[in-house]
């Protein structure tokens, strides 16, 4: 097993495994956020649970952070290796004839998502960390009420931010449109039994980011103080 | 020099076993000290190199391609024969032997052919063990198909790519030995001479095609598996690089060249489309199972078709001449290759050819599509009178059987063969002639062996379909590795062969001089110009039918062309770089010599047998007439000019088979 993660196929596996984890995370993130459209109360309760449960905070959160970092660091390393594997590029290359734009530009969609994550962390994660770990406030309360729903709505006031979020989700969709099925291919799930999976992958790649867009827009247009 | 075929004593069926029991062997410890050179990595050379290395010899293998996997054996489509009798249809070693000798028009050596039939079954076992994915039936057992000229189903196949799969099998066996260091592989190397030291073949001179470096390689024995010389015709189904150089150099160093005029002209190839044509593409013989061959009956219809005013599908049944069915009612469209080819030529020469050049006949699947369509409609309980439905169902059946061939045809000709008949014409495909070898596959030069298509041995004057792959692998896997031990057992104390001897020096000098002459010639015509001219002479005068006048003029024309080539050929570039024109020039120079010997052999052979048809020797109905006086192998010894070659005869004795007339009426 020693050389596995140093080999091209091993790294491919690792990229896929981290991708699975991130896609699962995305799904639950979406599910929780989506409750905010129906019920601020539910959203608050679930958010508080996620934000204070020790298992999630001290076990799953570090794994998630590791997964994110691994995925983008390895993605960049592989991209550099791949570029090195062809030192003189073609004068004319018709990539569109044999592959999708998404598959050829994972590095760019990925970097765009990374940039978005910077914004997203600035918006939500850093303040959370600050509140909980620096200030030591684990109550989740602000003026005697859960603060989560309120903070969410505050963030989506700015049309610029909402625009950036929507754009980021377009990149996420593009990334997932190739990434979802690519991850399954990487772990060897490509045969006659997996035809349905491909359709599911496409639906996931479009519906989840679309759902996030809907949430962002919903809060932007349904802001109530 | 008397030719000794060294065939063993005893009853036919026991000869090979007895021979193996009696010949000398080299013990495993000594094999480590013996080097063998194998030139060519097709089915014969590749399988021989791998097997010799498995036995423990140090093998050096050479090919001119960029990888041994690309040798032209890879292009064989149909299949490989073996007397396995898996179908239980009465096949046996004797029957395969009988079919092969008869198919070869009684011009092959009985003992060799029997041995070939004997080891054929081992080949299939070996290839399956290597992971060759032969076609299987639903029970998981190996499937067979039938091929022309035989009454049993004994052909094993892997789709239409049997040659490819068998070659990749041999290549994989080579890879294993290359990985172990037992084979040293030299890709992009061309052999340009054999080195004879004290009367024995002890090495070769090669040119590295990447940097032009001339190299000396020594060994205790040299094996040539360098394929056929069909490219002497310029246009053939051979690969562009297929050449006679290795065999011809061996001939010039003392190896006799046997039956050079025996050439197989395959009836179903895609016709020539213009002067730019560089090669011809074969359409598998299997198409004749379902296709009907015809030309129009009336000249005016021919003209209208050529001018594009009439479509072949518009021609009424009674205006079509299904000439094979007319001339050979018993075998019809399934007559052997030589007969089908000559019949096509006869019609085209009479002015009935259906394309612009007048050199094409139709191969029509309309009847098969209708027949299969009706059958399917019946099976499925649909309306058998619905013409559109029948056509659709029939097309599906034809597509399942020949889909890849139809697609290949459409890519090349840009016509849909499901809708309009294919156009086909015969083309040079395989050469039965080659370097003369004895029963041990050794040439007349001690220590120089020749295997596969490059030798003359097993197919006589005509080769049956699916037998070339069988012979190549039989020679390489199962015959040569045994017989070469008998010779090498004398070499266990010889030690390494030095390449510093005067013989190597002289051979290298000879090669360098030729190369320098070519690159410094600065003439006015390209190599292809001469090659095409040679091809025209060969095709027109030594092609499907030959006569004394033409052959005589061919001999002098080729000699003149050769002279012109050396005076006026233009080879660009230098000797010390990648220079394909130079490589081509070296090959064409040898074709220009071989062509002359070819014509001389054809002139000398005053009979018609298999692929060799002499117009002077035909029956009243225009069929080939074999002559008892010519029941021998013509082995030619080089004497300076090709036309001065000296004939040695090896009489062919048939003790186990009755020599009969071939009739397909």
């Amino acid at each position, binding site marked *: 097993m020693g050389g596995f993660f140093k080999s091209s196929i091993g790294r491919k596996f690792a990229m896929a495994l981290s991708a699975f984890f991130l896609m699962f995370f995305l799904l639950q993130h979406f599910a929780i956020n989506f409750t905010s459209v129906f019920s601020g109360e539910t959203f608050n309760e679930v958010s508080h649970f996620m934000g204070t449960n020790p298992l999630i905070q001290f076990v799953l959160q570090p794994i998630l952070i590791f997964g994110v970092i691994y995925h983008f660091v390895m993605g960049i390393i592989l991209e550099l290796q791949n570029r090195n594997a062809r030192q003189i590029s*073609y004068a004319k290359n018709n990539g569109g004839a044999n592959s999708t734009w998404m*598959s050829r530009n994972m590095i760019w969609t990925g970097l765009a998502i990374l940039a978005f994550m910077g914004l997203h962390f600035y918006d939500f994660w850093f303040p959370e960390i600050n509140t909980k770990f620096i200030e030591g406030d684990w109550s989740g309360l602000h003026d005697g009420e859960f603060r989560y729903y309120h903070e969410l709505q505050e963030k989506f006031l700015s049309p610029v931010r909402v625009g950036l979020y929507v754009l980021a989700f377009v990149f996420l969709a593009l990334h997932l449109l190739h990434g979802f099925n690519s991850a399954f291919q990487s772990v*060897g*799930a490509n045969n006659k039994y997996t035809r349905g999976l491909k359709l599911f992958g496409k639906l996931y790649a479009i519906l989840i980011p679309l759902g996030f867009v809907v949430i962002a827009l919903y809060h932007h247009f349904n802001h109530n103080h | 020099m008397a030719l000794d075929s060294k065939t063993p004593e005893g009853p036919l069926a026991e000869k090979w076993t007895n021979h193996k029991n009696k010949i000398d062997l080299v013990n495993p410890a000594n094999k480590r000290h013996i080097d063998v050179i194998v030139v060519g990595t097709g089915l014969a050379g590749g399988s021989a190199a791998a097997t010799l290395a*498995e036995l423990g010899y140090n093998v050096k293998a050479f090919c001119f391609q960029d990888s041994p996997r690309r040798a032209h054996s890879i292009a064989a489509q149909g299949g490989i024969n073996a007397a396995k009798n898996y179908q239980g249809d009465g096949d046996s070693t004797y029957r395969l032997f009988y079919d092969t000798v008869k198919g070869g028009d009684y011009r092959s050596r009985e003992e060799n052919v029997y041995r070939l039939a004997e080891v054929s079954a081992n080949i299939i076992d070996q290839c399956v063990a290597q992971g060759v994915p032969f076609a299987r039936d639903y029970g998981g057992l190996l499937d067979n198909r039938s091929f022309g000229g035989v009454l049993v189903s004994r052909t094993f196949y892997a789709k239409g790519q049997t040659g490819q799969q068998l070659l990749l099998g041999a*290549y994989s066996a080579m890879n*294993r030995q290359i990985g172990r260091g037992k084979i040293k592989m030299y890709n992009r190397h061309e052999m340009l001479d054999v080195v004879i030291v004290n009367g024995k073949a002890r090495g070769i001179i090669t040119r590295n095609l990447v940097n032009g470096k001339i190299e000396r390689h020594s060994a205790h024995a040299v094996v040539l598996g360098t394929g056929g010389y069909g490219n002497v015709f310029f246009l053939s189904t051979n690969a562009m690089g297929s050449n006679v150089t290795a065999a011809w150099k061996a001939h010039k160093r003392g190896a006799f060249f046997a039956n050079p005029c025996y050439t197989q002209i395959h009836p179903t190839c895609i016709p020539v489309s213009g002067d730019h044509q560089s090669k011809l593409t074969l359409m598998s013989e299997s198409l004749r199972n379902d296709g009907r061959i015809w030309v129009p009956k009336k000249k005016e219809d021919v003209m209208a078709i050529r001018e594009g005013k009439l479509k072949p599908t518009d021609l009424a049944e009674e205006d079509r001449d299904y000439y094979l069915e007319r001339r050979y009612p018993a075998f019809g469209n399934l007559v052997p290759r030589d007969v089908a080819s000559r019949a096509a030529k006869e019609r085209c020469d009479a002015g009935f050819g259906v394309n612009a050049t007048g050199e094409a006949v139709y191969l029509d699947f309309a009847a098969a599509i209708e027949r299969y369509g009706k059958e399917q409609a019946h099976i499925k309980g649909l309306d058998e009178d619905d013409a559109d439905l029948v056509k659709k169902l029939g097309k599906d059946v034809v597509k399942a059987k020949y889909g890849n061939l139809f697609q290949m045809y459409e890519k090349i000709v840009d016509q849909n063969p499901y809708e309009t008949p294919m156009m086909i014409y015969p083309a040079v495909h395989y050469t039965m002639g080659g370097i003369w070898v004895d029963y041990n596959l050794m040439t007349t030069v001690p220590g120089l062996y020749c295997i596969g298509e490059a030798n003359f041995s097993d197919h006589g004057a005509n080769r049956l379909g699916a037998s070339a792959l069988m012979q190549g692998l039989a020679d390489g896997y199962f015959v040569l590795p045994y017989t070469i031990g008998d010779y090498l057992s004398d070499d266990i104390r010889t030690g390494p062969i030095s390449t510093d001897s005067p013989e190597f020096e002289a051979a290298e000098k000879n090669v360098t001089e030729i190369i320098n002459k070519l690159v410094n010639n600065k003439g006015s015509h390209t190599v292809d110009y001469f090659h095409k001219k040679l091809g025209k002479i060969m095709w027109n005068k030594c092609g499907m039918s030959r006569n004394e006048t033409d052959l005589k003029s061919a001999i002098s024309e080729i000699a003149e062309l050769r002279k012109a080539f050396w005076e006026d050929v233009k080879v660009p570039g230098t000797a010390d770089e*990648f220079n394909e024109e130079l490589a081509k020039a070296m090959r064409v120079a040898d074709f220009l010599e071989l062509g002359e010997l070819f014509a001389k052999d054809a002139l000398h052979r005053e009979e018609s047998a298999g692929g060799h048809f002499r117009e002077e020797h035909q029956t009243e109905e225009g069929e080939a007439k074999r002559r008892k006086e010519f029941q021998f192998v013509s082995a030619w010894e080089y004497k300076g000019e090709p036309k001065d070659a000296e004939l040695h005869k090896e009489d062919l004795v048939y003790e186990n088979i009755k020599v009969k007339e071939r009739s397909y009426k």
Partner: protein
Amino acid sequence: MNLTLKIWRQKNASDKGKLVDYLINDVSPDMSFLEMLDVLNDKLITDGDEPVAFDHDCREGICGMCSLYINGEAHGPDRGVTTCQLHMRKFTDGDTIYIEPFRAKAFPVIKDLVVDRSAFDRIQHAGGFISVNTSGNTQDANSIPISKHAADEAMDAATCIGCGACVASCKNSSAMLFVGAKVSQYALLPQGQVEAADRVLNMVKQMDEEGFGNCTNTGACEIECPKGISLENIARMNTEYLKASLKG
């Protein structure tokens, strides 16, 4: 028809190389692409220029020797064909055609359009075989029944001609389709099981050492493969590799 060709010219491995323009007239639509280059070369030689070097041999789509990158695609714009099977009727009068060598660090240029693909051979040396010696006593070919489905699938993988179009088309110059096809052929057959783990580990190791890029599943290789080798073979290799790694 008349065409403008932009052809990569490079004297030898150490030369820098550049695209050179050539005009060629009266090209017949019935010519194959390589025959068109033959005509060009004939003219170049007659005019005292150096002909364009390119690899080719069987000219019927099976040897895998021809290797051109034409107008941005391996083996040109047609599907399911090698360059030698590409015909000029796929182009129109007045077209400009880019002709470049297959590009990858693992496929260094030898001259003009000729590249060195011996990396493929070395991968095969590492494990592309079943270790069985030649003997007249190998067990009977029918002694192990193999399901038709498995045999057909193995055959589909085995049709790879080793041309390198997969590497040339891949934006990462990855050789996984080539290696996957060979690994799959043996993985699908019972004969290949004994050495399955060593085979895939050794072949992948060699592949990585040759400097090919990583597979990112763009699928370009499958589309450009003249023999239609499926991406499923890469997926199969991935699982074979995982299985082998877990065992080892």
